[in-house]
């Protein structure tokens, strides 16, 4: 699926453009992304956004699945600790993802494939920066090959 595009890009002699999946919480990060859009802030177009009600909705297996599907990088972003719309969702997510990130690093997944951030609804500029950072990291890592499932 995604790998076919990569092959044709290689044939066309184009530079590797990573595909990054961003899973954003509705109340803060998605609104922050929207603010970046409204403010016409430029950020790399490599990101595809999925809106979830809260960062706690994100099962670590979603990230594993995303990597299996061939996404070169994943970002999960939620409200700042203390500001969760559902009071404590992001606290739970923080624990879960701290564990996942360290475990994936231990298993040998390159650091930078899975990324996490707190972006509030008013931080349009920060969202752009976060996307720039993530896309930059993933570009340097190259196409994702570990955990990828070829159908």
């Amino acid at each position, binding site marked *: 699926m995604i790998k076919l595009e990569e092959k044709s890009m290689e044939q066309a002699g184009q530079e590797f453009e990573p595909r990054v999946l961003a899973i954003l919480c509705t109340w803060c990060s998605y609104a922050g992304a929207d603010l970046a859009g409204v403010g016409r802030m430029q950020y790399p177009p490599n990101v595809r956004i999925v809106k979830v009600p809260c960062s706690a909705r994100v099962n*670590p*297996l979603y990230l*594993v*699945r995303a990597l*299996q599907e061939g996404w070169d990088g994943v970002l999960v972003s939620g409200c700042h*600790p*203390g500001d969760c719309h559902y009071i*404590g969702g992001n*606290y*739970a997510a*923080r*624990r*879960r*993802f*701290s*564990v*996942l*990130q*360290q*475990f*994936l*690093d*231990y*298993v*040998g*997944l*390159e*650091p930078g494939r899975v*990324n*996490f*951030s*707190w972006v509030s609804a008013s931080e349009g500029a920060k969202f752009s920066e*976060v996307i720039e*950072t993530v896309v930059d990291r993933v570009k340097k890592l190259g196409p994702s090959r*570990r*955990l*990828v*499932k*070829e159908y």
Partner: protein
Amino acid sequence: MHMDTIKHIRDTLSKLLGSGRVEAAVGYEEGTVPLAARPVIIRLAEDAGKLVLEPFRSGGTALYVRRYLVERRGQRDFDPEKAGKLAVVARPCDIKAMINHIKEKQYAREDIYIIGVHCPGVVDRGKIFQHLGPYDIAEAAVKDNVPVLKSRTGKKVEVPRDDALADVCARCLQRAPHDADETVGKEVPAPDTDPFAVVAAHEKKTVDERWQWFETQMNRCIRCRACRQACPMCYCNTCFADQTNPAWIGQTAADPDVQGFHIGRLMHMAGRCVDCGLCETACPMNIPLTLLNRKLDQVIYDLFGYQSGMNPEEVPPLSTYNPDDPNKGFM
């Protein structure tokens, strides 16, 4: 394990069953082949003589305790007022697993009568087979903590203790039963080693080397699910790996599916694994799974100061949160 310990256990169980203080007892009895004890549930006092304390790693009792108590509750004629206790011969790792079960509301502490055994570790069968093949062994016993084997031709082979001890047990710090209604066996001093030394050693490798290791090991996995079946903490009615709607992980033994299965299962074990090593023992391909579990134990301990299976009042770390948790890894 001394004969006195086994005798003590048999006598205790005989009394408990005879007096009706417990309804049944879970332990291990002699298997059909040497080095393989099999689990047994006894209800009569005279059967207490069957029990052995297998020094050769074959399994743990916590798994059967949970199944027995949960299935008993589900039976039509179950009357909680009349239900008796279940006695269990438990090593410290079994006790840890049972404390975790109690935390997770699988049963109550009052439902079990724990006979805790001081544990010097068990003998790894794979290591024994290096000295005498599985089909050549006619008899096997542990005398003064040294495995002594007798081959079919009458040859006697003694395996040095350090060669035979299971790796999981060599680094275990929990040698004493920390919660037991009765304790048997001789106290064993805990080793002076860093329990996470094996993790630190693995982390000295580069990311690419670690991936090589993971990929190579997972390639050998045949997706038999023995690790899941043997684990006392793995008891979901429908395992995430067996779900098809949504299909979290593919069902096949192909590399990405296997990698996803182990990553998913181990994430579910974070904070719950008791480091009993049964997954590794059960694995027919001898994959060193405990190397992965240990990392999760270390992460949980570093981040939240939590040790699995020690205190039934402690809440599992991933079931709760603290506003002051570290923000490591978040932009």
